[in-house]
């Protein structure tokens, strides 16, 4: 079973002091709006792994307003970090170790950190996989 251990020293903002640091171990599958993701914990992060970019986008639909802020408050209090991945690329980080920047503000997802490189990498990997599948189909 995957094991996640939180890190109190990772929180920089005193107002977000980890007052209740928790450890979470998971063996979990979630399906959000039909998009399936595995939830594992290795090392210091809780990893939510989506199969594709469309799946990750679908999972964000129809969520309650302010859920990102509420989730972040919970994760910082418990000193946990959630990392969303697509095709093994990190596309977003929430919680104690998230460092949202200009992109997050532009997309209005702050306090969630968006990893542009990860998103581009995931899209590229998806396109590459699609081209490969098409080639196999035509050969």
């Amino acid at each position, binding site marked *: 079973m995957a094991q996640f251990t939180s890190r109190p020293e990772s929180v920089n903002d005193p107002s977000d002091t980890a007052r209740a640091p928790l450890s979470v171990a998971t063996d*979990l599958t979630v399906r959000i709006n039909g998009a399936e993701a595995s939830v594992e914990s290795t090392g210091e992060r809780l990893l939510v792994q989506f199969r594709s970019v469309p799946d990750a986008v679908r999972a964000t639909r*129809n*969520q309650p307003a302010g859920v990102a802020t509420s989730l972040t408050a919970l994760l910082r209090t418990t000193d946990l970090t959630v990392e969303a991945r697509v095709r093994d690329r990190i596309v977003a980080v929430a919680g104690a170790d998230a460092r949202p920047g200009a992109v997050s503000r532009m997309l209005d997802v702050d306090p969630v950190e968006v990893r542009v490189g990860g998103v581009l990498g995931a899209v590229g990997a998806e396109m590459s996989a699609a081209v490969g599948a098409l080639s196999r189909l035509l050969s």
Partner: protein
Amino acid sequence: MADADTPEERIDETTTWPELAIGLYDRLTGRGAEISYQFEEMEVHVPSGTGEDAEHAEWRLDGTVHITTRERE
């Protein structure tokens, strides 16, 4: 958070997720205790708002989650 005397009272009086986590921490810590949740195709429809026309996000959970506490540093 209200000035409740015991962890149980704190959990009962929570109004936010962080307060719930703090109450959970107070209840578990120092006892070597662990909370385990086992989900078997649990389905939850989360409303996007409070109105009648609110959309719903559909969550389905399958598997286990174990929660323990760590020492504050």
